[in-house]
């Protein structure tokens, strides 16, 4: 296997153009496990760890731009993420273990495109965009358009996920992430919920809800979001929204949990929003 360590984004893109079958490696925490398990070693790996331009944070125009190869430890420790995007911070906090967070990257978690990816529900709820670079230019698209199936992305040949761009929510928002797993650290989620509620004068002005691990991709529930909009944040309203969620999610039964359990938990997690906001 040939491992390349480009130092610039351009060099990485040129390597991808020259070797269309090359795999991109960021943290390697998923890729290397998969390569070994499937005995499917790519001929060439383009390792991004030396591309300084792909890591780090930029804040401007009400957005936080996070380089795709930024480590999850850096995401967790970033003050702007902690203060402005508690939803993302909350997910980073329960992401794998500190050792994996030192290696795994935000862009890598997006590109694994797993239905159970911890960072995807928050990015869906926050309305994040992905920035894709190729030798012919840059384009952006919403993260929910980028993920087209389990493990599948709308990535053109020669294109690289270069950054994740997250609008900073305006006004007072309740942001909440919870992951239910078989154990606390290093568990693949059984169900996760990312919720972002904008509450104005006691009334929910906007609700964005995204669930992980209850379908082939991250699922939002527009019916539940619409039901909450315009109402006050009460346990009753959340229970009603939960009923919609049960109908919308399409979980599978697997070694981690049954479909019925996942359906129940997906609805129940909404009730936490009453708990954290003190609503009844």
């Amino acid at each position, binding site marked *: *296997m040939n*491992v390349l360590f480009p130092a610039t984004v351009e060099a990485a893109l040129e390597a991808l153009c020259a070797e269309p079958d090359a795999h991109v490696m960021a943290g390697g*925490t998923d890729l290397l*496990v998969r390569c070994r398990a499937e005995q499917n070693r790519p001929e060439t790996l383009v*390792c991004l760890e030396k591309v300084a331009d792909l890591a780090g944070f930029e804040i401007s125009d009400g957005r936080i731009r996070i380089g795709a190869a930024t480590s999850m430890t850096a995401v967790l420790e970033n003050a702007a993420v902690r203060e402005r995007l508690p939803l993302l911070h909350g997910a980073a906090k329960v992401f794998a*273990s500190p050792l994996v967070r030192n290696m795994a990257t935000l862009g890598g978690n997006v590109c694994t495109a797993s239905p159970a990816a911890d960072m995807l529900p928050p990015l869906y709820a926050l309305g994040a965009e992905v920035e894709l670079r190729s030798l012919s230019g840059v384009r952006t698209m919403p993260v929910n358009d980028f993920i087209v199936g389990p493990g599948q992305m709308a990535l053109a040949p020669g294109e690289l996920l270069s950054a994740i761009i997250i609008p900073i929510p305006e006004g007072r928002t309740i942001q909440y992430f919870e992951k239910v797993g078989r154990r606390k650290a*290093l568990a693949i989620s059984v169900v996760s919920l990312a919720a972002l509620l904008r509450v104005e004068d006691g009334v929910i002005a906007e609700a964005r809800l995204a669930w992980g691990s209850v379908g082939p991709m991250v699922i939002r529930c527009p019916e539940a979001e619409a039901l909450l909009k315009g109402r006050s944040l009460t346990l009753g309203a959340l229970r009603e929204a939960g009923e919609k969620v049960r109908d919308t999610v399409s979980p599978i039964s697997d070694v981690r949990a049954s479909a019925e359990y996942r359906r129940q938990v997906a609805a129940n997690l909404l009730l936490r929003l009453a708990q954290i906001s003190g609503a009844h």
Partner: protein
Amino acid sequence: MIISFVLDGEARTLEVDGGARAVDILRESCGVTAPKEGCGTGECGACTVLVDGVPRLSCLMLAAQLDGRAVITAQGLASDGPHPVQEALADLGGVQCGYCTPGIAVTAAEFLERHPDPTREEIREALSGNLCRCTGYHKIVDAVEDAAKRLGSGCGRDE
């Protein structure tokens, strides 16, 4: 490909296959057996080493990624005599079969550099990627707590 790195303070240059894993070349080509392979998938932490001072899982790194870096294993941690974390693990019974111990020692040593006065909860979180099937963790947490005192009271290895 040829890689050069510093392993436990000693410069090494060797030829490796591009697909070789760091844990394998550390153990087999370099003869440093402190990093253990448990799960091989990043879940057990037994293979943890410090790479440029950051705890990383050597089973999920390619040898090629070590080029130009400094690697410290639990062996290197003890190059001037046992590190206070290693002493505390031995003194307080935080070691049983010992398979997880090298990974725990390097994870804990680096953690205590950043958090010299940790709570038990912080110690548990810091070690959450290092599994142990023997001790039930209680004595390991005791040991890391004790090592923090040893380091803080100046009876560490710098004395």
